């Protein structure tokens, strides 16, 4: 009775946590409430549910804390998405392991119990291996582009069909070996599922896998007949699904297109391979362009964050404002690696919130902007997304900086962006390219503007 009440308290804390996290004002409290609910739940489970192995459990928890907290503290803000992916993956693995252990602990089980067990093992495994692949992609330990295996689609279908078959078989004949086999097939399915997802779509896959882990946890709640696991897992599964859809909408993509798009097109590129001319300028050229402008929009991207240039860009903007130039930042919904990621990075550098403008605030007045400065961004200003139906990123909303009076494009090299798509804007006669590391260029630019 008390146990159930404690679990109810924890479940309410989780609901309030998600509610709080949805509003900027209460987000941080929301996170605290969630952590508090978790503490209540874990202490309750430990005090009431542990018959033996108590000490070993405490050791395992201590180890988890020793690994988890430093990892979360040390990670750079730019690497947050892949860290979330890893945390999500281990959660999925834990759910699968719990279901496996309970399966061996209960010899005479009902069909419903076995259904919940196979679902937990399958979804947990998919979530684990899928998350590991997204981590490898975002960490650039493997290619960020969609990976198309020969007959990848057939392989994925084969893995899907055999996992369903194994689920059915395990429900009919409860057999430990079959369940292990299901876990292995689930791992393969997760890999095959995420490999074809590429570029800017990877964070969407993380969000979806996050929802998957939630469902695996909910299913494990049936296995253990534990209401808290059902409620909390379902909450995450449901809210994660909605969040995934919102993210996809922010990118102007449909979910099916993101997950299965790579199987279809991707051969449309590789046309105009001839040498094309670009116009590159010196720091002084760009300083003059900026210093005598009335109206400047800065479009920052992931490259800015990688170069740790948030502070440099803020100083340049402050200097321009002292000269009477009106400056704002154009923040694309998916600037950085994830929706909202760039806002976090700029907030870290104390950029005033009021200067951050969204697509709908910038685009209508873009033709009167004197200079649009693109720093370390690429795909979010690629006109191909607007004009080129064959482009892999077609349909993603962009900043129409090609319609501004002039464009300064700060780039490390001519390498294409995260999505691996060539950018027509680079060859636009209005565009001046400034090659070099973003931080170095901005610092030089600041000095040059001061000289004017």
């Amino acid at each position, binding site marked *: 009775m008390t146990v159930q009440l404690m679990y109810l308290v924890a479940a309410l804390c989780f609901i309030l946590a998600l509610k709080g996290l949805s509003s900027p004002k209460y987000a941080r409290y929301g996170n605290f409430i969630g952590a508090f609910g978790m503490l209540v739940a874990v202490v309750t489970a430990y005090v009431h549910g*542990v018959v033996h192995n108590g000490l070993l459990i405490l050791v395992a928890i201590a180890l988890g804390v020793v690994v988890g907290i430093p990892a979360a503290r040390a990670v750079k803000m730019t690497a947050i998405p892949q860290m979330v992916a890893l945390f999500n993956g281990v959660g999925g693995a834990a759910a699968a392991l719990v279901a496996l252990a309970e399966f*061996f602990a209960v010899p005479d089980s009902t069909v419903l119990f076995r259904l919940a067990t196979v679902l937990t093992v399958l979804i947990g495994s998919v979530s684990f291996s899928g998350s590991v692949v997204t981590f490898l992609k975002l960490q650039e330990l493997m290619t960020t582009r969609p990976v198309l295996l020969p007959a990848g689609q057939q392989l994925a279908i084969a893995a899907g069909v055999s996992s369903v078959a194994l689920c059915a078989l395990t429900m009919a004949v409860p057999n430990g070996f079959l369940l292990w086999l299901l876990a292995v097939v689930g791992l393969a399915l997760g890999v095959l599922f995420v490999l074809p997802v590429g570029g800017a779509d990877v964070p969407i896959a993380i969000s979806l896998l996050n929802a998957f882990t939630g469902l695996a946890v909910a299913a494990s709640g049936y296995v253990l007949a534990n209401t808290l696991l059902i409620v909390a897992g379902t909450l995450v599964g449901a809210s*994660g699904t909605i969040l995934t859809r919102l993210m996809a909408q922010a990118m102007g993509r449909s979910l099916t297109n993101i997950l299965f798009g790579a199987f279809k097109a991707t051969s449309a590129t590789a046309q105009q391979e001839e040498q094309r001319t670009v116009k590159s300028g010196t720091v002084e050229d760009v300083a003059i362009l900026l210093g005598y402008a009335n109206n400047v929009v800065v479009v920052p991207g992931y490259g800015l964050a990688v170069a740790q240039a948030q502070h440099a860009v803020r100083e340049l903007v402050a200097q321009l404002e002292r000269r009477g130039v009106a400056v704002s930042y154009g923040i694309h919904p998916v600037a950085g690696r994830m929706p909202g990621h760039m806002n976090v990075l700029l907030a870290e550098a104390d950029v005033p919130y009021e200067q951050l403008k969204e697509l709908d605030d910038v685009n209508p007045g873009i033709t009167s902007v004197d200079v649009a400065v693109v720093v370390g961004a690429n795909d979010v200003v690629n006109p191909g997304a607007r004009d080129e139906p064959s482009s892999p990123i077609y349909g993603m909303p962009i900043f129409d900086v090609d319609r501004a009076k002039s464009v300064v494009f700060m780039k490390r090299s001519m390498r294409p962006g995260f999505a691996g798509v060539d950018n027509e804007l680079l060859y636009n006669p209005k565009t001046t390219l400034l090659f070099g590391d973003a931080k170095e260029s901005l610092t030089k630019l600041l000095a040059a503007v001061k000289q004017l």
Partner: protein
Amino acid sequence: MIDLLTIFVLAVFVGFEVVSKVSTILHTPLMSGANAIHGVILVGAILITGSAQTTLELVLGLLAVFLATVNVVGGFVVTDRMLEMFKK
């Protein structure tokens, strides 16, 4: 069984409802926070290990406890670090 199903269906609606109006700025922290919450599998891992009878169950359970703890503490800490940036 029907009780558990009722709980499930109600939780689906609550889950849909609580995040239906979230601004893009908070997508990443919200996902990370939800990520920490599904670490509640730690409860299941503790319960299963606490009543484990065989070595296999014990090993699986302890591994699950370890992984779930990483999920929980890492998830909440990383979310807090992100939200820290938003304070004025």
